[in-house]
């Protein structure tokens, strides 16, 4: 990250009004980072077409957000949009790509396959069930495949996260955006219970029993 972000804050903070300056600096840096997300040209399957649609088609035009500079080399990219299923053979490569990227780096996972494995969860001997088993994901965009508009929403959410999250003093720590606030007297446990009830009612599948019967993977 260099001198500016590692050594400078200590000296600036000691100056009169230094902390105010640091905050301003954070804001400027975050604004710059948020508005200049260069994606890596990476796509494995169907979602990649919708991603290309978002970047390519003039109707959608991701360039408006300053994110059309698709870099083929991970060294120069800031954002990796995981578009499509990740399988066992691809997983180490994805990890390598992520590690080759320079900090700060951001990840958007688009589509059902990258979030959970999608239609390929059961009976598939290669599909990784969720790309977040391999690399940390910042924003999930559901859909199969998500529309370009959905991808834009994901991108804007990521921008919001970057703008409000990282500071020069604590790089790499991001505040996850709260998408919807809970009502005052409802706890997360109650919501989970309700969701389970609804699920059981709709599909007539005993979730608890199923869960016990399943062998979840321990690693890749």
């Amino acid at each position, binding site marked *: *990250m*260099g001198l*500016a*972000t590692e050594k400078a804050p200590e000296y600036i903070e000691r100056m009169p009004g230094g902390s105010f300056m640091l905050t301003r600096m954070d804001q*400027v*840096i975050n*604004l*710059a*980072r948020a*508005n*200049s997300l260069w994606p890596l040209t990476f796509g494995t399957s169907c979602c990649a077409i919708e991603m290309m649609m978002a970047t390519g088609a*003039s109707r959608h*035009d991701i*360039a*408006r*957000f*300053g994110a*059309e*500079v698709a*870099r*083929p*080399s991970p*060294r*120069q990219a*800031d954002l990796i949009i995981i578009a499509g299923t990740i399988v066992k053979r691809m997983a180490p490569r994805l990890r390598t790509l992520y590690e*080759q990227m*320079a*900090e*700060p780096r951001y990840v958007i996972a688009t589509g059902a396959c990258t979030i959970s494995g999608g239609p390929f969860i059961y009976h598939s001997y290669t599909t990784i069930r969720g790309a977040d088993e391999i690399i940390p994901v910042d924003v999930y965009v559901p859909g199969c495949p998500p529309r370009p508009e959905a991808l834009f929403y994901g991108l804007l959410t990521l921008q919001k996260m970057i703008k409000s999250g990282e500071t020069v003093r604590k790089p790499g720590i991001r505040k996850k955006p709260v998408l919807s606030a809970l009502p005052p007297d409802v706890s997360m446990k109650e919501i989970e219970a309700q969701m389970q009830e609804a699920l059981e009612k709709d599909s007539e599948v005993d979730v608890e029993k199923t869960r016990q019967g399943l062998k979840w993977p321990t690693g890749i």
Partner: protein
Amino acid sequence: MLDFLFGQLVATHATFDVVTLSDRTTQALAEDPWLAAGYALLGLAGVGGFLSLLGMALIYVERKVAAHFQCRLGPMRVGWHGMLQSVADAIKLLLKEDIIPDRADRVLFLIAPVFSIIATTLGLILIPMSPSLQVVDLNIGVIFISAVSSFGVLGILLAGWSSNNKWSLLGAMRAGAQFISYEISVTLSLLVVTLFAGSLQLSEIVQSQQDGWWIWRGHIVGLVAFFVFLIASTAELNRPPFDLPEAESELTGGFHTEYSGLRFSFFFLAEFINMFIASALAATLFLGGWMPFHIGGLHTFNGLMDLIPPGLWFAGKTTFIIFLIMWVRWTFPRLRVDQLMRLEWKFLLPVGFINLFAAATLVITKLYFFPW
């Protein structure tokens, strides 16, 4: 006729006194050393600031031009119509992690981008932007520029070699071959103009176009030289359709595959500034540089043209050529390696030599289009 109507209203043939920054410094040195130091500092800051500002502006323009060619809008969110997009990119690139690959040749890897940017800066200081806006005016300007521009490829070669990446190496080798080949054509077309102008000094070449620009005063020879220069310098800039060293769909990132953050931005910047230098050189040599549009003998017309400041003339001409290069980039597909070499050695080089010979004949026989 026009002279009769306007009488002495407009001075005929305003003369331009070329005063470069280095001249001012030398003059000031005799009188006041502090003033000289001030001038030197001004030059340094000016070149540095101009370099980065111009780079950012050109990147923004490139993105906008591309977007509008492709029926879209381009950057829109940062500032008015995305004006500050390049600023955001620059800040981000400055603060990105600086990765040096484990097996890379550290020293060469670190100095390669610096080579690239130094070559660019050295080229920039020679460009006469207006009679009073030029940093140095060497008497061998043309030779110096062509020498310095070849220096840039050294940075690219070093980058490709030191990255320890096969794709980078392939890209660097392509760049080397391409540079060496096309440099010949560039020099040949530069020689045509120096023959016409009778000087290697850039400001004198500009002055020599007082009665008309070399692109049309040199008959067809000037026009051919202009096009050869345009094609060959586009090839030297590594811009499509000659962007083989960094051909995205073939070599991923080419020579800069392993570069990140600030060092990558040096290459990025150098590429765009080089585009400016090539355009400015084309404007200076063939389109009269800062010299207004003159037709020999028509004094009133020439005087009217003189009302527009020379700086604007230069900016207009350069912008036009930059736009031309961008236009080509977003329209044409890429050539193949052997086709690229064939174009140079089998087409541009013979044309260049024949053109030079024709130019020499013209100069000896004094068969200019407007002999007055």
